[in-house]
């Protein structure tokens, strides 16, 4: 908002995801944002007032046409997949790597109107290994080679974006690396594990984990856009908690999985649908991870939640959901309804 005279035109990738939807909602309240266009393979899951939704294929091949047609000046790239339990390795590659290639191609076209790019990445790029420092700064490299598909794809994506940032001095590129997200709404392998009657842990390990609350996720994306941040930033709450203490806050006990070849047990458990711990999460439950969040706070961002605050927030949502049973979704996207509200002459819109 600060210092902006002309309204911004924003494109959000991954509008159907938690991140994209919540960010779009936040931007709708910002009078400095003139236009919000959202792309995704799935319809938005949250109610949106003025965001225009366009269905895209998995690799966003339609992106350059949309950028040209809407003349957006800002792209929020929130579609990167970080949960490998939700899609196959191939789909993950398609979404992350090919999707970002198409994005870079659209934003880097000769007559491109795009001046800013904010990317939602993950601290998965640091991996988790026993050689790690306690706190990763943005400029520190991971200590073990990336073996999982999701980590490799994110590293590839970040290197594309770095190249793009180097080649295009007139576009500010911000890469935000988010720690594991906790909150009242979001569902990840970690929140699923924490929602089980007993929390799975790896025997003999009690790693220190760092979390970021979902509100801070949305606020930091907004912040990066508003302040035109450039470069790489870790986004994570202050402090770290042992996994056993996280379970303790939820009032649960931990159940230990065997430390050697846990795959023998995890495979059948995943097939039964009890518990899915992909390799990158299993490594996290062994060695934990910490990232230094000072770069973003020095840029002026104020976190609302520490790590323990994020755990507390998750715990509240979890307790509430246990008592008040899950209801039917109160919102479902319907194309003709949304089109009516946005474009029909019958709708009386406030003139301002």
């Amino acid at each position, binding site marked *: 908002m600060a210092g902006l005279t002309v309204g911004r035109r924003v494109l959000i990738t991954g509008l*159907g995801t938690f991140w994209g939807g919540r960010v779009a909602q936040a931007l709708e309240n910002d009078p400095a944002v003139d236009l919000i266009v959202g792309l995704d393979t799935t319809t938005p899951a949250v109610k949106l007032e003025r965001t225009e939704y366009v269905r895209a294929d998995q690799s966003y091949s339609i992106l350059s046409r949309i950028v040209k047609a809407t003349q957006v000046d800002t792209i929020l790239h929130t579609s990167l997949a970080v949960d490998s339990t939700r899609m196959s390795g191939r789909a993950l590659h398609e979404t992350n790597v090919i999707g970002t290639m198409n994005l870079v191609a659209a934003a880097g076209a000769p007559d491109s109107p795009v001046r800013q790019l904010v990317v939602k990445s993950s601290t998965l790029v640091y991996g988790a290994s026993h050689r790690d420092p*306690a706190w990763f700064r943005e400029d520190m490299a991971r200590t073990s080679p990336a073996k999982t598909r999701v980590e490799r794809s994110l590293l590839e994506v970040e290197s594309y974006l770095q190249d793009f940032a180097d080649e295009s001095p007139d576009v500010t590129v911000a890469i935000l690396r988010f720690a594991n*997200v906790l909150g009242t*709404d979001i569902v990840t392998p970690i929140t699923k594990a924490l929602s089980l009657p007993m929390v799975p842990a790896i025997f003999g*390990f009690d790693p220190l984990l760092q979390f970021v609350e979902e509100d801070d996720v949305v606020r930091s994306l907004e912040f990066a856009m508003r302040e035109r941040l450039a470069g790489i930033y870790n986004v994570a709450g202050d402090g770290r908690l042992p996994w056993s203490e996280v379970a303790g806050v939820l009032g649960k006990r931990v159940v230990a999985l065997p430390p050697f070849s846990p795959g023998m047990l995890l495979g059948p458990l995943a097939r039964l649908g009890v518990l899915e711990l992909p390799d990158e999460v299993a490594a996290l439950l062994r060695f934990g991870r910490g990232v230094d969040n000072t770069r973003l706070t020095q840029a002026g961002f104020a976190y609302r939640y520490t790590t323990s605050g994020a755990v507390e927030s998750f715990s509240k949502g979890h307790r509430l959901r246990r008592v008040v049973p899950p209801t039917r979704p109160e919102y479902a996207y319907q194309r003709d309804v949304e089109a009516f509200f946005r474009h029909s002459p019958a709708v009386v819109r406030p003139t301002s």
Partner: protein
Amino acid sequence: MPEVDRSRTVVPFPRAAVAPEPVSAPRLGDVDAWGRSERVRAVARTLYDPIYRHWFRAEWEGLDKIPAEGGALLVANHAAAIPSDAPVIMHGIETELGRPVYGLADYLFKALPVVGTLWARAGGVPAHPDNAYRLLRQDGQLVLVFPEGTKGSGKLFRDRYQLRRFGRGGFVEIAMRAGVPIVPIAVVGAEESMPTLWKSPTVAKLTGLPYFPITANMLLFGPILGAVAYFPAKFTLRVLDPIHLDVAPDQERYSRSRIIDVAEGVRISLQEALLGMLSERASVWRG
């Protein structure tokens, strides 16, 4: 992809409209950001105190040279197949000075189930330069490091009290960057508490350990008990004069030759102190 799970959507959750105060929940445990727990440490102190006092009969000289506040890098010689010196130094300083000590150790520890977790709760930190820097500079803590690393604890009994190479002097660079003094500590007694008679490079390679020792303790007490039972060698610890490095902290780089000079200086003064202490020692067991 993390997203709202539509199958079990979402009880409308009460949300504050405007920024409330930052949320930080009270903690259940007391494990700090480095994995150290004062409660675990207190239990360990209670259990270890008889060993410290009556088995090793540890005796300090010049304990007042360790700063009462602010960061300092404690540098000691390293010995015994399973090092007995780190617990003695950490326990001694914590009980005598009331200051926590974070012990840097090979990151190998962290990969071991149970042992790695206990080690971290007891104040052990993987020896990453950035960990040491943060502990010293930001947290102002005492950090214990053995520059010889596994070369020190893995040496044979016939090489006892002969210091190995001090790495590449990384510890000096960390002290410079953090702007803290280096405090050398000479330890006599650890070498005799678990002497290594022979090493098996083949088994070490197979198990991925830095060395695989056959100790006198193992020969005497068997392989299981021998791995934990130390001989009651008398421990004498001498704190040498702190070395203040008159360079500005947080520099991009420091002079390589200066680093090597200081590291070698620390090594020589520790070696001389050890020789002096050994020449005064009448008995390995009685001191």
